[in-house]
């Protein structure tokens, strides 16, 4: 028997809403992409002619090479440091109960719950006071504030999955904590660490507020450069701003595709157990 194709009115409304959302999303991304390839686009459905010159111009005008280098360096440093600092803490929080562990967990949760601007402004003031802001170091330090707790929160379920008996066996054979970490836990945790660090990179590339508040002229990441070129509209051709937006978009999507090879989409926003069906 063929499946019923006619759906209930409720289903029509739901699928209609989803369709409207996707059409809107496609329009938002599509108009940026089309505009970045258009020679001139004014009051018509599509541009009159197409070109790729805006990309060359954006590359030159916005000095994208240093900006991209800064973005990559910041992301790598933030990912490496937050994994090195966060994973041991996640290990203890996942395995141990001790007085104050709930309080400590709350402390690690707060930087993720607060809007970046609220702690970003005092943080930037402190970093300027010690002469750290305005350089790469300040940007990295500011981005570490939400990243370290994020690594702790994403790594905890990965660590909980590892059977403690493996560690106990290693300890029986005389391994110290350092050895347990390097030869038992690290190899087992590689997928989790990869997932966490890719998510940190995605978040850091997209993190606008903290970088905006602490970056100097030579330590801007791509989002901040994009924001400046947009808010100074009229100086540059709109198309070259859009070309830069497309470059940003492509970078994000590449990272996303890589990330989704390691993580389940719902894991990007929440800790979920896979449904056991």
């Amino acid at each position, binding site marked *: 028997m063929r499946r019923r194709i006619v759906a209930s009115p409720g*289903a029509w*409304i739901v*699928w209609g*809403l*989803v369709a409207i959302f*996707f059409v*809107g*999303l496609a*329009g*938002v991304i*599509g*108009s*940026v992409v089309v505009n970045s390839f258009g020679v001139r686009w004014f009051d018509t*459905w599509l541009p009159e002619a197409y070109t790729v010159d805006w990309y060359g111009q954006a590359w030159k005008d916005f000095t994208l090479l240093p900006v991209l280098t800064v973005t990559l360096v910041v992301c790598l440093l933030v990912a490496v440091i937050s994994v*090195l600092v966060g994973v041991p*803490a996640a290990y*203890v*929080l996942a395995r*141990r109960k*001790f*007085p104050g562990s709930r309080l*400590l967990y709350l402390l*690690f949760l*707060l*930087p993720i*719950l*607060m*809007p*970046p*601007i*609220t702690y970003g*402004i*005092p*943080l*930037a*003031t402190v970093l300027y006071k010690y002469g750290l802001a305005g350089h790469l170091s300040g940007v990295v*330090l500011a981005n*570490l*504030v939400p990243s*370290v707790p994020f690594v702790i929160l994403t790594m905890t379920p990965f660590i909980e999955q590892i059977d403690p008996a493996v560690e106990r066996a290693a300890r029986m054979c005389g391994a110290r904590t350092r050895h347990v970490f390097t030869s038992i836990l690290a190899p087992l945790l590689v997928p989790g660490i990869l997932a966490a660090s890719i998510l940190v990179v*995605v978040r850091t590339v997209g993190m*606008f*507020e903290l970088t*905006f508040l602490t970056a100097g002229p030579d330590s801007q990441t791509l*989002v901040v450069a*994009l*924001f400046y070129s*947009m808010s100074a509209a009229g100086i540059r051709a709109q198309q070259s701003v*859009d070309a830069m*937006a497309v470059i*940003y*978009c492509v970078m*994000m999507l590449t*990272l996303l595709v890589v990330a989704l090879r390691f993580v389940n*989409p*719902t894991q990007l*926003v*929440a800790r*979920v157990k896979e449904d056991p*069906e």
Partner: protein
Amino acid sequence: MTAPTLAVRHRLAERGIDPQLLLLVPATVFVVALFVYPFCYGIAVSLQPAQGGALAAYRTFFSDAYQRDTITTTLAIALPAALFNVLAAVPIAYRMRGRFRGKRLLTTVLVVPITLGTVLTAEGLLNFLGPTGWFNRVLIFLKVTDQPVTLTHNYWGVFFSLIITGFPFAFLLVLSYLSGIDPSLERAAATLGAGWVQRFFRITLPLLAPGLATTFCLTFVLAFSVFPSAILVGDPSGSTRVISIAAYEAAYVRYDYAGASAAAIVMGAVELLVISVVLGLRSLLYTGSTAGGKG
């Protein structure tokens, strides 16, 4: 090692304290130095304005209508946006909680806007919803309006940007909560003759409500910290002058650090207030196992 220290170590270890906890030190130092210390420093700075008493910065903030109204402006944007995102996510996630072909693709596509971030969304909205954008062209083509509808550089631009980034987030969270509810509970209700309205309102919704409260809080945090889109697609000196713009202006335009810290702390306080009200209401709800059982 002498006997007494060994005994102390034993007793501490029994309560869960031993040298392994030292692994927590780097992360704790990080959070304290880069989060707690700046926060306390900000509070201290906000209490030491250039002139006036200890509370002068706060008094200025609350007595100046241009500053004070940013609180209501922010809430007027963030609360409806967060509420809409959660309420729209529920029926859609409810419809999609089962397994069907293309579910993984759909959730993957929904992750895209979360990662695009507000700056790119703002740029796209300016092009798409602008007076000569595709959206207005379609409306004019379909003879819905003669004049282009103004949807950018006002409240609606910011609202739409919050929906594009916030809705997928809310949807994925609600979906994950929904898939945690055992479907056999609903099947049992159906066997006893409950229609879908009864099943949804008497079985699923009560189990989902705590998750919805959490989702609302997280979406609200995202919407509350709206900053780039309020400047780019909004009307940053008027209807979308949110509190983060007030804080930013105080710090980087007027160099009034006391005022900026005061605004940032007021912002944090308002946000925590809303979250604690929601979480307080949440504690009144049932929060137990959502798995079926023989109980």
